[in-house]
């Protein structure tokens, strides 16, 4: 059947799904997403795009004498006919499925006051100020023998969550980020700046180029250093990289079943145990200033850390580590019952704060006699789940600090470190700031606030020749 031409609102797609469902219950998630991006390399634009998509997920729930079975079907859909097809597929899938182990009562009767509002779009004009400045930055960089490579993306996703149990929740999520790599014309020095933004009003292409110019100038003195343990300052972006891994691997069920760094040897989780230095707080909060995110659960399918039955559960500030003590893990209602802990589902932002944290990265540099200042990390992967040992690389600028000042640039390294262990061993922290993970921020997790951390014995396992 070909789709019809009728244009519909996201709310009407939700209503249509709920109306035509033949299952006992039905949950519908509609994401209306627009985005615009610019990408450049070698001081010229390379690709770009403006995208619009509407994705609809229908989750059907069918009660039998043995329990509740579910079916989840998602697709691009912009017409009533397409949504009806999705509902029919989800209903059929649920009827053929076995009872769900995570079955729970569906969340009931929660309505957002702005439910009836339209989806919020973005378009290429979000770069009306940035784009001409970027063109000017290309000219400045070329004239000064710098080469710029980078990407900006702005996306606004409006989510509508509805159900046969009276859920009508709406959330508008702007997500934006910018990043620019600068290299010297001989490609021997590389620097990077990047961050998150909600609207690009605060992003100045010429300022980015100026900061890259300063960082590349630090590389006028080149120092080759061997592998080893170094007094190392991790800027907020690098700390964000590592904390996101600590968060993603914090599933309660996996910990309970003995397979993560958060597992108690002999059984159970380490909740209640002091796992980092005192004064360390790792938490998520959907209302955190500048990092606002969906204040309710959205789950298109069930797995160890999410449950379709939990759709619409309210989310609030959740402490994962409080004053050094592990206080929570990523839970569904199912895993919370299993582990006999509070229901603490994942939230789409993450904040690390340290009681003693004060000042800036520059202040940490000023207080360091001899050490390394990193720019960011790259290609981070789990090596050993027992300690949450991660490996990865330093990237786009490792700087030598001597007597409180940056005195040159150093080769890159491969590191092997555990974020949990780093939170036990760090010696100094800056104040917590909005940050952007170089590794995960683009596509997976862009809302973080982290301090810079100074670690007296960071393990640089080998030298990387990458420049």
């Amino acid at each position: 059947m070909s789709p019809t031409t009728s244009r519909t609102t996201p709310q009407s797609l939700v209503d249509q799904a709920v109306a035509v469902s033949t299952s006992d219950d039905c949950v519908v998630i509609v994401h209306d997403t627009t985005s615009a991006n610019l990408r450049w390399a070698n001081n010229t634009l390379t690709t770009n795009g403006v995208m619009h998509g509407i994705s609809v997920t229908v989750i059907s729930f069918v009660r039998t004498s043995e329990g509740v079975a579910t079916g989840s079907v998602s697709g691009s859909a912009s017409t009533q006919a397409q949504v009806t097809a999705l509902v029919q597929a989800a209903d059929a899938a649920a009827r053929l499925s076995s009872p769900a182990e995570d079955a729970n009562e569906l969340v009931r009767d929660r309505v957002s006051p702005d439910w009836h509002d339209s989806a919020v779009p973005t378009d290429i004009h979000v770069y009306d100020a940035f784009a001409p400045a970027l063109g000017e930055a290309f000219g400045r960089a070329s004239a000064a023998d710098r080469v710029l490579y980078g990407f900006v993306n702005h996306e606004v996703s409006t989510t509508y969550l509805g159900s046969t149990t009276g859920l009508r929740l709406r959330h508008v999520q702007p997500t934006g980020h910018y990043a620019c790599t600068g290299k010297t014309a001989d490609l021997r020095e590389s620097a990077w700046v990047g961050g998150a933004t909600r609207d690009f009003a605060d992003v100045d292409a010429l300022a980015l180029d100026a900061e890259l110019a300063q960082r590349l100038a630090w590389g006028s003195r080149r120092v080759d250093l061997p592998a080893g343990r170094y007094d190392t300052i991790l800027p907020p972006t690098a700390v964000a990289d590592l904390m996101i891994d600590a968060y993603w691997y914090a599933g309660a069920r996996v910990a309970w079943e003995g397979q993560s760094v958060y597992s108690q040897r002999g059984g159970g989780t380490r909740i209640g145990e002091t796992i980092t230095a005192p004064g360390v707080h790792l938490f998520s909060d959907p209302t955190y200033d500048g990092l606002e995110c969906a204040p309710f659960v959205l789950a298109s399918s069930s797995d160890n850390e999410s449950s379709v039955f939990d759709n619409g559960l309210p989310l609030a500030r959740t402490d994962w580590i409080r004053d050094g003590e592990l206080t929570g893990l990523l839970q569904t209602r199912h895993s919370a019952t299993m582990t006999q802990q509070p229901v603490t589902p994942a939230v789409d932002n993450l904040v690390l704060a340290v009681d003693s944290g004060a000042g800036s990265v520059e202040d940490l540099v000023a207080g360091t006699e001899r050490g390394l200042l990193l720019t960011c990390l790259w290609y981070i992967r789990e090596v050993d789940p027992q300690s949450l040992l991660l490996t990865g690389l330093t990237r786009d600028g490792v700087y030598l600090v001597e007597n409180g000042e940056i005195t040159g640039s150093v080769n890159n390294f491969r590191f092997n470190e555990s974020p949990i262990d780093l939170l036990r061993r760090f010696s100094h922290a800056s104040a917590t700031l909005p940050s952007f993970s170089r590794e995960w921020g683009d596509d997976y997790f862009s809302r973080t606030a982290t301090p810079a951390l100074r670690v007296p014995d960071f393990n640089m396992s080998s030298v990387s020749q990458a420049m």
Partner: protein
Amino acid sequence: MSAQLDQTFTSLPYRSLGDAALTRARELGVTHADFRFERVRYQRLGVRDGVLQGASDTEDLGFAVRVIHHGAWGFASGVDLTPQEAARVAETAVAVALVAAEMTSSPVEVADEPVYDDVTWVSSYLVNPLDVPVAEKAALLIDWTQRLRTGAAVDHASAYLLQVQENKYYADLHGTRTTQQRVRLQPGFEAMGTGADTFDSMASIAPPVGRGWEYLSDGSYDWDEEIEQVPELLAQKLKAPSVEAGSYDLVIHPSNLWLTIHESIGHATELDRALGYEANYAGTSFATIDQLNRLQYGSPVMNVTGDRTVEHGLSTIGYDDEGVQTQTWDIVRDGVLVGYQLDRQMGRMHPGLNPTADGGGRSNGCAYADSPGHIPIQRMANVSLQPAPDGPSTEELIGRVERGLYVVGDKSWSIDMQRFNFQFTGQRFYTITDGQLVGQVRDVAYQATTTDFWGSMEAVGGPQTWELGGAFNCGKAQPGQVAAVSHGCPTSLFRGVRILNTNDEAGH
């Protein structure tokens, strides 16, 4: 009997949308326009400890228009499947090109390609896994986890099945029209257990493949034997001694070596990386184009090809996302870098890499977009290490090692942004002493620099050791795109590779 184009796809209105979009683009005076309509269906099943945790279906349906106008790319995509919307999206692509032209200092040109007027291509499979009832697939995975859990060392077991059906229609202003379909699937399982003061896991080493549901039953992979063996392999791993860090000779099985090839050869010979297009994200390459035909990539036994044609390969297709017919070519010959992976823009920029009779250069067919909402970029071909004709068996290679490790299965991977320094772990590492396998060791990672590692390759196995591995989840580009790709290789022998003890790395 080979599969046919899916009628639920061929009944979609892609031809009229393509005509509307290309007509509008031509009216607006573009120098190039292409239209791509895609429907990609995904299904994922996850099972843990005998229970289906989740089964979800996802479909990505839409279209995109890409133009070259005033020397710049313009790209836009849409989801409303009407000719009016297709024309509007074409207008948006042209408007985006006008914005982009202000910042484009090198005018975009693309290499010529013969016209393929209304051709079709379907990948090699028998049964579309998406046509198999979910209950049947779930029952198989549930059975796997239950059988794994009969092992004394197994506390928990999980299994999953990813399946993809990809349909693409491409049309451009030159008259090429292609309609294609391919199917791929990735089944997997893992057993988890606990030792005295440790925990660990052992996963299947079965590769993801461009095959149909028959992969689970046609004997091309022995699932039953592996499920029988994995609990005992896990038990041995949990009791195994921790490795002593140092230098070892390695015999690496294709189930591990494919990933090292992917990271250190596949990505390093993507020309867009070598040219700096990925400098802000995926990274660049040490294998810069000035070193073509000069760089000693590895030892003389190293021969690497690129292809998008091998049967059951995950990157295999008839025509790429720029309408280029797919090909096979050399990347490393006798240890020397001789080729790159190209798209049409790079084929024009560097005509000598894939020369045509008129000297204009040609793409070798490596453009791919993972969704109708994303612009095609240069993505990886099936990059494969060739076996030695009449080469040795895996046992013979092990027999040549006095003190070493035999590496099976992939696990953790990481490589730097210029593809020099890498570190990999595996599912299991066996000690080799005086040419014999002695038993497993734990906590192993191998770390090397790409050209040192391939330079230390003393021997490649014969065709009887060659297997096609691969991945569904190769990431690249901004906005991020995911691609599936295969890598074939024989078991191979490397001398003097640095081995780390991961416990030591975590200690201080």
